[in-house]
């Protein structure tokens, strides 16, 4: 048998573990020796394949399994492995499609906390692995000439993300990570959360609505003047420059700007 055909049979036996044709095609190419049958030898590879991908999801989504429990989590992950075989030499992104997949997986696709927690855990991973960048220091603001302020734009640190949650997702995540039973409840309004990495530590915190709106504009490359205009929705004109400056200082102190 040619190498190409042999490798195709082998991959089929790994990817379609419940399809007996693929297993018997591989089985026919194997020698029978020792105390194990060809099928048992194939099963060693099948188990290793599934177990490696399963543990990748476990490590990318450490709280999701605790939230769902084995009866929901195991079928979710097994179906994900069946439907989204890895196409990359790295396992780093194997779990990337789970947030989208979970939105289609009955019966949990209707539970907001499950969807939000899944999004949140993947974002933590993305932020953790984001590119390194030197954060601007608070002193930066003093170095800007007056004439530059209106057109000044800012760069958010790599890995920065802004999320809106309808459930107390971050509290639930913290409780699950500590092994506590989470108190899950919807928030009165969607809450804005920022997730970023400061040096090597991934951080997250909730923010006010005006701050969230401004960060969205910063991400789109809007100028300081445009940020001030946006603030008029929440603040009287005379307080706008002070609020804008205060937010900039705050972002610099968090290491959000690079």
């Amino acid at each position, binding site marked *: *048998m*040619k*190498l*190409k055909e*042999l*490798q*195709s049979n*082998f*991959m089929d036996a*790994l*990817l379609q573990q419940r399809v007996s044709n693929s297993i018997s095609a591989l089985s026919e*190419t*194997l*020698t029978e*020796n*020792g*105390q*194990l049958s*060809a099928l048992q*030898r*194939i099963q*060693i*590879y099948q188990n*290793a*394949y599934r177990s*490696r*991908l399963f543990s990748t999801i476990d490590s990318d989504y450490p709280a999701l399994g605790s939230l769902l429990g084995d009866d929901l989590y195991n079928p979710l992950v097994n179906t994900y492995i069946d439907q989204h*075989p*890895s*196409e*990359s*030499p*790295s*396992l*780093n992104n194997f779990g990337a499609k789970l947030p989208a997949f979970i939105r289609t997986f009955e019966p949990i696709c209707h539970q907001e906390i499950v969807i939000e927690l899944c999004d949140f855990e993947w974002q933590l991973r993305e932020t*953790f*692995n*984001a*590119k*390194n*960048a030197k954060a601007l220091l608070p002193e930066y603001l003093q170095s800007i000439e007056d004439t530059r302020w209106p057109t000044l734009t800012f760069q958010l640190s*790599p890995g920065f993300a802004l999320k809106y949650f309808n459930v107390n997702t971050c509290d639930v995540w913290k409780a699950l990570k500590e092994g506590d039973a989470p108190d899950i409840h919807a928030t009165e309004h969607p809450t804005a959360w920022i997730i970023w*990495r400061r040096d*090597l530590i991934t951080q997250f915190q909730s923010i006010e609505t005006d701050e969230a709106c401004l960060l969205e504009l910063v991400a789109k490359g809007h100028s300081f003047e445009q940020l001030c205009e946006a603030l008029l929705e929440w603040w009287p004109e005379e307080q706008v420059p002070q609020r804008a400056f205060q937010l900039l200082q705050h972002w610099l102190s968090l290491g959000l700007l690079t």
Partner: protein
Amino acid sequence: MQTILTSPDTKPFYGFGLGLRPEYYQHLLARGLPSEILPDKTQNPDWLEIISENYMVDGGKPLYFLDQFKERYPIAMHGVSMNIGSVDPLDRDYLNQLKNLADKVNPIWISDHCCWTGANAHNAHDLLPLPYNDESINHIAKRITQVQEILERPILLENLSSYLSFKDSTMTEWEFLSAICEQANCYLLLDINNIYVSARNHDFDPMEYLLGVPKERVLQHHLAGHEDHGSYIIDTHDAPIVQPVLDLYNEALQHFGPISTMIERDDHFPPLEELLSELGQVRAIYNDNQLTAQQS
């Protein structure tokens, strides 16, 4: 292209190393700079081996720590995803990333496995065996030559632990590896535990394996623990090295002479001191061997 050696006498010997894993970052760094800690060599690794793919990321902790370790220890880069034996085209993106990492790390060498890890654009993330025949030799040797050109250095290929064998094989694994090294002009990372595991799983004599590979091509040894199920063994890297593997290592030392050796531990991580004490045991086997060689 860099050359690593010209004869067995000029083989670089880096001593006794450990696989660098995140679980040991802080503990290893806390031991200080090698110049401060080296007087008692038995208490420290001489070199470290990284899993290349763990550092092929944009940023964050892995690269931060790698920067510190590369200032302190000689580093070998060991990969698991080159997919050198696959019928799929070589993954140029992967190889470019590997080259970029090598440019940053300046490793003592780069290794991967004599296997395939995926086909038809899907990845198994496992080290899958090849049939040992001329078709595989020609296929893999051609690809190694291309890889070595991209990486601008020869690579080391590691022997696998395997759990099945193919009717299409026409030779032994050691004959297969020897032919590849010859044709591709690459080197061997001989995993002593894998030889033991495969010998038990396929019922061959591990000594015949050791004696059958080209001596001058062997640059590194791996040692590790495994899971013994009686009728078969699984290579797990999650337990101490068993005595029969240490005995086989002793035989390897007598046959190959000093070869840079390291312990791979990938699960059930013991405290660093425990792993270093296991490394001390390996070092002691080497020292005894050297003494015996001098006396004779």
